[in-house]
């Protein structure tokens, strides 16, 4: 690497570090305020809190570094630009809601890939999302419960009273055992995933232990240790409770620190498809680029210009003699042009 590249990389790192530190500080402030100046904060959960704050910063750091990729940056800017374009507000919102629902919630694209994988992913994803939605507010002291009367619990959100639930009713039982259900969902999902990874030939060839197995094993370990907490307190009179709690905490913290890396990063990265799809939807209405050779419309002109910009920024120079760029041709014409260049060589040297 050249000196200037090094220094630009270094400044990028420093900038990302500052953003990440600011994000961690903001989260800390929110925890302080949301728990009413720590009034509802449970000091026993201090370890989880520190880990969450650090992991949050790490994710933001990774995101900031990711946005440094020329292609990513361009999509990011274009996505916001198109979104903020007032003229198309209605259609933009429709595109965004459509993508958010179809891709992020229903995940139809995974269904198209395979049904079992959709089921597997839905189990793991909803298991994790529901668990996170329950535990983080509890850990941060944003939600807490107070006993009201003999057996009703009232939930407080940021210190404001909300609904009360009867601890012995079915609803109460479901709420207080929600984490057990989500743990079972995650375990089932991971079991499907591991089963597939051990049997599918394509998956076997591609997978790497650290990337593809470790996350599943980690999630299973978190879920099982969480379930064991329930088992210990319900049926074993608290046997080994503090040891299990410690193990559970260690596993959760490991998982949190794993988030910015490898497989888990797609959780934070995937919502970018909202911007990508917005560009594609808008792009369909824009002027289309025609292949310089066969004349077929293949992509939006503005999109192609962006792509050519990215390719240039990366240090490639695909300019041809005529001043056109190789990317002005549709994929098929690129293949044919190469074929013709080859045929011309072969002919010249008297083969054929």
């Amino acid at each position, binding site marked *: 690497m050249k000196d200037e590249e090094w220094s630009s990389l270094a400044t990028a790192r420093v900038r990302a570090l500052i953003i990440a530190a600011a994000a961690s500080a903001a989260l800390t402030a929110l925890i302080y305020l949301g728990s009413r100046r720590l009034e509802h904060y449970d000091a026993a959960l201090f370890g989880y809190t520190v880990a969450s704050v650090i992991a949050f910063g790490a994710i933001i750091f990774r995101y900031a570094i990711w946005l440094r*990729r*020329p*292609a*990513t940056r*361009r*999509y990011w800017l274009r996505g916001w630009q198109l979104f903020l374009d007032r003229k198309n507000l209605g259609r933009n919102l429709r595109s965004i809601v459509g993508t958010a629902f179809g*891709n992020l919630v229903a995940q139809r*694209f995974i269904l*198209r*890939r395979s049904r079992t994988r959709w089921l597997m992913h839905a189990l793991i994803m909803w298991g994790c999302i529901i668990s996170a939605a329950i535990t983080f507010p509890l850990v941060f002291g944003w939600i807490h419960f107070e006993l009201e009367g003999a057996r009703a619990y009232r939930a407080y959100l940021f210190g404001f009273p909300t609904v009360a639930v009867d601890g012995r009713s079915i609803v109460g039982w479901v709420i207080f055992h929600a984490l057990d259900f989500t743990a079972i969902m995650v375990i089932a999902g991971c079991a499907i995933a591991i089963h597939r990874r051990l049997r599918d*030939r*394509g998956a*076997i*060839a*591609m997978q790497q232990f650290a990337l593809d197995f470790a996350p599943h094993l980690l999630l299973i370990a978190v879920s099982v240790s969480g379930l064991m907490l329930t088992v210990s307190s319900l049926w074993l009179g608290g046997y080994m409770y503090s040891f299990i709690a410690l193990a559970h905490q260690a596993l959760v913290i490991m998982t949190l620190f794993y988030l910015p890396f490898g*497989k888990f*990063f*797609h959780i934070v*990265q*995937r919502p*970018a*498809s909202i911007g*990508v799809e917005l560009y*594609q939807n808008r792009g369909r209405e824009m002027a289309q680029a025609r292949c310089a*050779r*066969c004349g*077929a419309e*293949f*992509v939006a002109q503005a999109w192609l210009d962006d*792509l050519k910009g*990215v390719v240039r920024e*990366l240090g*490639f*120079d*695909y*300019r*041809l*003699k005529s001043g056109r*760029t*190789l*990317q002005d041709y*549709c*994929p*098929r014409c*690129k*293949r*044919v*042009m*190469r*074929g*013709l*260049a*080859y*045929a011309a*060589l*072969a002919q*010249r*040297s008297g*083969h*054929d």
Partner: protein
Amino acid sequence: MFIDPRRCIGCRACVSACRECGTHKGHSMIFVDYLDRGHTTATMPTICMHCVEPTCALVCPADAIKVSEDGVVMTAMEPRCLDCRNCVNACPFGVPKYNTAMHLQMKCDLCFDRTAEGLKPMCASVCPTGALTYGRYEEIVPRRRGVRPVNVHVFGRQRVATRVYLMLPIEEDDLCVDETAEPSFRESWLDAQVENADKRNEF
């Protein structure tokens, strides 16, 4: 991997065989294109050339395309690929394909499931003429007289080094691709018969 387009007879056995590959089940990732059906029956088989500095991987906003330890440029990682089609339109060889419904890019990965076990890629194992051959340089090259394995293409001003070799006439060092004359009338008519999805690399 060695490609000798002069031996290609356009039988498309490779196209069918490619569908059987475990890493992109049911979808063929190899192309056999007619060059100019008005003038010649010549066909051009195209697989991923596994560039040393892959344009596709660098233009990917999601960092979804990874290179294996042996230099094989892999298909996009499924959890990451956003179906943005940057790679599809940036690749100088016109190789990666995309599928909107699955939100996925797929490309030739030299049958990673097979080559990792020492087997030949599907296409090379069925090609009847040896246009597609897989093997070690020392084994293949001495058996092919009159051709020279070359792994450099020049597209306009860009030099692209690849891990896959192309067999060229003995006196050539590289293959230069630049603009050729406009397609002939007959070819452009036939071209129009090619499905539009094929031009855009949609599968």
